[in-house]
């Protein structure tokens, strides 16, 4: 088995191929380059990214490259099937909450005064997020038109899409698993039909695991308020925005791990459950047979949805 590890999109990435042949190694070497290309299209933290050029051109018919086009389209489809709970229009809400730079920089500046003064300044510039249904897509010309004032953030969806895309490209060379900062895409079982063993991190002690999953031909993602959090005016904030309020979600869940047909759906479904909270989140999960979930509660309890049994390593 071959493995490649690197950092991209502000996260630790890894890709595995169950094949030792030189052609497989050559394909695996290309993975960091793929992520670099995708990040250049999708990042809101790179001033020269294609996404930032789109965000800077409201009301303009913007001809998108294939990556930006696919991810924006996927994000709007996600907004549709999640009933508007996971939308790409949370950019301004994230900035309003203080998430105005990459999380690495946010962490670095957290202890100093600079971040706090910047955040205080941002309070006076609070912007509305806008409605995702106002975004116009032209399928034929692959153009995107944003309404005035609306900016996109494709962070979570972008990582899920990238994991799915990389696993699909690698699958030509053998069974593949791509881990994009915890959003994991699995192309198929390993040799001998052995599933891939993937552990679920304990949000309170990340080196420890809550359980072990057996995965093949699916995606898994974890969303939570345990890591990407910061203080603003003495109040803890996190990056999971509830579009209904425009504020970080108020939830009793610390982290939600979702297994889904692909990594992109898993990423979105995990966010839905965190936003809804454990009670409504479990109800939502039971009503969607394509998903299975494990919820780590803030009070320390671990909850499993009824279909999670089929993914637990026995």
């Amino acid at each position: 088995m071959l493995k490649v590890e690197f950092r991209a999109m502000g996260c630790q990435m890894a890709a595995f191929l169950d094949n030792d042949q030189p052609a497989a190694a050559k394909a695996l070497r290309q993975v960091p380059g793929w992520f670099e290309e995708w990040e250049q299209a999708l990042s809101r933290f790179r001033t020269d990214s294609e996404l930032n050029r789109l965000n800077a051109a409201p009301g303009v018919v913007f001809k998108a490259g294939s990556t930006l086009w696919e991810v924006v389209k996927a994000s709007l489809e996600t907004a549709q099937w999640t009933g508007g709970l996971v939308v790409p229009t949370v950019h301004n809400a994230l900035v309003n909450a203080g998430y105005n730079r990459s999380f690495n920089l946010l962490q670095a500046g957290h202890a100093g005064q600079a971040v706090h003064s910047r955040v205080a300044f941002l309070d006076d510039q609070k912007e509305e997020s806008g409605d995702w249904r106002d975004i116009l897509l032209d399928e034929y010309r692959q153009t995107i038109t944003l309404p005035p004032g609306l900016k996109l953030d494709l962070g979570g969806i972008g990582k899920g899409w990238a994991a799915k895309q990389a696993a699909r490209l690698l699958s030509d060379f053998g069974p593949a698993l791509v881990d994009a900062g915890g959003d994991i895409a699995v192309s198929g079982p390993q040799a001998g039909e052995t599933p891939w063993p993937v552990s679920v991190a304990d949000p309170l002690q990340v080196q420890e695991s809550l359980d072990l999953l057996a995965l093949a031909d699916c995606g898994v993602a974890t969303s939570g308020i345990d890591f990407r959090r910061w203080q603003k005016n003495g109040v803890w904030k996190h990056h999971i925005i509830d579009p209904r309020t425009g504020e970080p979600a108020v939830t009793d869940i610390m982290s939600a791990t979702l297994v889904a047909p692909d990594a992109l759906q898993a990423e979105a479904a995990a966010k839905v459950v965190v936003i809804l909270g454990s009670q409504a989140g479990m109800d939502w999960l039971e009503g969607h047979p394509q998903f299975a979930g494990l919820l780590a509660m803030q009070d320390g309890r671990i909850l499993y949805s009824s279909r999670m049994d089929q993914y637990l390593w026995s």
Partner: protein
Amino acid sequence: MQTQRSGQNKGPKYLDTKVLIASLSIAVTVGLWNLFSNEAVLAQKVEPNPESSPPEAPAEGQDLPPLPTLVPLLNLSSVQSQGSSSGIVAQQANPAQPVGLRSVTAPDQVIVQKVKPVFEEGKIAPSGGGSSRRGAVTQTRSSR
């Protein structure tokens, strides 16, 4: 009305002569070509070193280190423009000098690595979960 054919009875002998001349011409051309081309080859031929053994062809699938790359070493001569106040230096290649080669080391292969063995005879032996992550190839967690 009949048409008279001139030289009708000397036809076969005339044909033989033509074939003979054509054959000789081809033979001379091929012979000269061969002679000159051999001289050109001989002029470039290097005497083999009897002490060195011929290199063995690598076995198929053998994992060899990458070969160093040889690139031409440019021999540049700098010519300061006389009376130029701008200080621009014109560089000119010197074609009279023989082109040397410098050795460039192969790039380090740091990206791809073999995974530390988590398999035993091709089978994964996970612990079954609980508080351990032994046997897992990776971990799902909130983005970090």
